[in-house]
């Protein structure tokens, strides 16, 4: 019972990270219509920025998190404007190649600037809480609560504000949005900014638990793709629920079955699901 509870909490924490990364990815998918492959690399950059703010400049953890969020929001807007915008009217493969190319550029830049070594920054609190015989570090609770609050805020933003409904309209139907008087260029930029900032926050939240290195985005982005495909491409609820499901599943498989084939099992499930529901759990056929 104790081990199961511990595993579940770890799964929810991992799921929180996946949900945030996948949510950003699915929001940006609504703009690009191809998965933004560079998303995992931006997640990595978010972690490094918080690392330098916290370790090099001695900023408190939460300041590091907010600095990383703001800088990655700006980077997202810049990337959309400079790198992706020229390709909207071109075949989709172009945006796809651009995103893959960006991974090489950014990751190698990170490697040459900061080196391959593992880094880590300290958690804001090293308290350990004991619940029902299970030891939980405060950081895990911080990850779970912060992620849930942030996902809820993004949901409220999209559903309840004018700007949010303009973003939703733009991703569903750009021509229709234009006719409604929506400046779709601005909406695309803001969406990129929000999606990228979500990845950054996820990275800073797990920074004290996982390790920071230039290739740290690879496993996360691989899982995030699986999640948005399972959830249904472009679906908000699909990305969030899919994130938690995969996070918990991955942790359960690792603890109870095997440590070696986790990803193979998850991908196998993806194949099975797509055979039954080709558009994912919450995806709608076009």
């Amino acid at each position, binding site marked *: 019972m104790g081990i199961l509870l511990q595993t579940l909490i770890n799964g929810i924490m991992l799921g929180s990270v996946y949900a945030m990364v996948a949510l950003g990815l699915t929001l940006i998918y609504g703009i690009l219509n191809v998965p933004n492959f560079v998303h995992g690399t931006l997640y990595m950059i978010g972690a490094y920025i918080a690392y330098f703010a916290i370790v090099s400049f001695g900023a408190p953890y939460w300041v590091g998190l907010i600095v990383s969020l703001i800088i990655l929001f700006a980077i997202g807007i810049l990337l959309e404007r400079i790198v992706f915008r020229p390709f909207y009217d071109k075949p989709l493969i172009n945006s796809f190649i651009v995103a893959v190319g960006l991974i090489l550029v950014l990751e190698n830049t990170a490697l040459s600037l900061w080196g391959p070594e593992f880094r880590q920054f300290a958690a804001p609190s090293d308290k350990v809480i004991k619940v029902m015989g299970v030891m939980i570090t405060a950081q895990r609770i911080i990850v779970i609560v912060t992620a849930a609050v942030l996902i809820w805020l993004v949901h409220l*933003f999209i559903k309840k*504000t*004018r*700007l949010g*409904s*303009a973003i*939703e*309209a733009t991703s*569903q*139907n750009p*021509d*229709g*949005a*234009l*006719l*409604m*008087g*929506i*400046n*779709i260029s601005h909406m695309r930029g*803001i969406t990129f900014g929000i999606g990228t900032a979500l990845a950054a926050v996820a990275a800073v939240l797990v920074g004290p638990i996982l390790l920071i290195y230039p290739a740290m985005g690879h496993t996360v982005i691989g899982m995030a793709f699986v999640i948005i495909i399972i959830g249904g491409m472009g679906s908000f609820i699909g990305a969030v629920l899919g994130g938690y499901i995969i996070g918990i599943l991955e942790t359960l498989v690792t603890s109870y079955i095997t440590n070696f084939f986790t990803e193979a099992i998850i991908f196998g499930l993806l194949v099975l699901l797509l055979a039954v529901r080709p558009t994912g759990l919450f995806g*709608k056929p076009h």
Partner: protein
Amino acid sequence: MDEYILEVRNLTKYFGGLKAIDNVSFKINRGEIYSIIGPNGAGKTTLFNMITGFIPPTEGEIFFQGQKINGLKPYQIARLGIGRTFQLTTLFMQNTVLENLLIGQKQTREFPVFHSIMSVKRRRVSQSEAVERAHAVAEFIGLGTFKNTMAAILPHGAQKQLSIGLALSGDPDLILLDEPLGGVDMDEIDMIIELIKKIRDEGKTICLIEHKMRVVMNISDRILALSYGKKLVEDLPEVVASNEDVIASYLGDRYAARG
């Protein structure tokens, strides 16, 4: 106030070497139903695309309420008060009828990003106004009973009605309808014709592209006939219907057989 709501002056559009619109000029009077007819490829939709800013003209000028609008972006033109439907229905398919209409209500005026996030109280007031107007538009276009139905599962005719509702949602002065009867069932046609007349009776100006000649001849105040991008004739329906060039290039057997 200007007598003309829209003036198109010497408009020309090249697609590569093809002259899609060739030196076309016309004026639309305030409050009329003005129809544009012509065979496929005559340049009707190209004309709409230029008026709404989706493609730039090669030469010529477009004035809306006396203001030059060519060169403006589509969303800016929409905010000035020109609504439009597309030939292929353009809806927010994953949203309900009411949500579709709300999107338009909310976006009609310029809003600063931070104002919309920060000033919650003021936003709420306009939010309730927007909801009220969205309900009113839903009733007006005859979809009152479908308010909470997702757009994707509406019957085709109802989707056409909703697309007209979307074009109306910014409370525009001029509405461009691109084949609102295209692919619509016989019994749905009358409903949409009534809707178009109702919109005109609200004091709005309508510019219509339509292939169903009997409808066009009945409903229009004036008609512009295009052929291969050139203006053939612009006149009252009965004059256009009896114009030999028009009959030869387009109406021909279609209208003769029915009329």
